[in-house]
């Protein structure tokens, strides 16, 4: 429950900052979105390494995957 509470606080703060208000975005208004750090996966190689570790060490997987094909580690 604590984790949900923390997430809720973060989302409320974002909402207060208008970050969760839908609006039309023209192509020329997407400069911020084009930043490298705004990608869903901003560092694919590091993400692949992390997901490979989680896949090897946990029963749950998927959603963001592992890089470089299959693995006999799990």
């Amino acid at each position, binding site marked *: 429950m604590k984790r949900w509470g923390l997430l809720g606080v*973060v989302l409320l703060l*974002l909402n207060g900052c208008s970050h969760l208000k839908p*609006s039309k975005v023209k*192509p020329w208004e997407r400069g911020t979105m084009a930043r490298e750090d705004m990608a869903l996966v901003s560092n694919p190689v*590091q993400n692949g390494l992390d997901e490979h570790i989680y896949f090897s060490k946990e029963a749950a997987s998927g959603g*963001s995957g592992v890089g470089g094909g299959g693995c*006999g580690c799990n």
Partner: protein
Amino acid sequence: MQLNRRLILAVGSLLATTSGVVQAADWAVDSSVLFYAEKDSQHQDRVSLAEPVLSITKNNAPDDYLNVTLVYDTLTGASPNGAYASSRTQTFTSPSGGSGYTVAPGYTPLDPSFKDSRTALSLSWMTPFSRESRYLAGLNFSSESDYTSLSGNYSFLNDFNNKQTTLTMGLAYSYDAINPHGGFQTPLSSISNNQSQSQAQPVTTTSASGNGAEGGGGTSFSLFDGKIKTTFDAILGVSHVLNRYTLLSFNYGISEVDGYQTDPYKIVPIYDAGGFPVDYVNEKRPGSRLKQTLKADIVTAIGKDSLHLSYRYFWDDWGIQANTYDIKYHLRLGESFYAEPHYRYSHQTEANFYVLGLSSAQAVPSYASSDLRLANMVTMTAGGMFGWKVSSDTTFTLNLEKMQQSGNSSPSSAVGDQRKHDMFPTVTATMVTLGVRTLF
């Protein structure tokens, strides 16, 4: 899994496509090396790994590219064999084909002969169909001394709503062959009956269902000898540019795994009324598994920084459910440096055939595994990345993280001697990644 990752990369490219602000470089080369080492709360060193990665991307346009990624990893060290700590000395023959080993009282048994290397090659490309649609395809191959995998994936992406919304539909299929050192052993039979490597018969290739005879096994003659595991993945995703600062993404994934899913190196203890192990049997897992995931991501800009939040719910028909939360903050430090603190929390419930051990008085069940990765468990990861943009086309990164896995050290099912020992030693892993990204 590969499919899902490619999907996210594909959705991410939507932004650059529509911005018209950033012109992608022709070539991008990412090279990294990961160092990973584990230790448990009983001060036993476990697995260590070194994993170099080389990823080369040729960009023709933001949604028209080709990527080749090569991964090599080498693992050594000791891995839990499934047995638990006892007040008595425990002796094992190694199912991985090595010589036997002895474990002192009070320690969780680890098979010290764990050693393997893996080479993986991935090829993926994205090609536009029109201004609003494109496809992403990929081929992946990986090879270990006892495991080979070949997979392919295809996703179709279509933009709507003046390119503020993207719908993605994807499919993937993988064909894996397992050929363990020491051969396949009879599941749920005593390890004292296991054939040694020198006695093993040449392995027999089974059908894709993988549920043929479980005995035999041994020498590998080709990459796809052994028992087969197939995985069929499907995914449906939608991403939406909510406003100038925020991107949302929702994915549903379903995965059907059929064939050999038993870990050939794991055993299950048989214990007496006092909780002392009197024998060990080879584990056995079901031959099919249906996995599903729901995942939500939000990325939002906060000035020159950005916040990444992620939540994933996982469930399968083995009885496992997992909730995973991930938070990362990209903190820009001037023009040349950045820091990315990261925290991940994941809790999973145990598989319905997970057991600490089997009582010698009970009937042998259809399936049983004592692999702690199938137990009720919490994994926490904390750390972060530090980046240094040396020039407009070269960035160095250092990623430092600690991961801790903990479970129930004193389960209610423990009896007798089991209550005197830690049934789930906490494992702490240290991960260090050095990376460099170069644009040409």
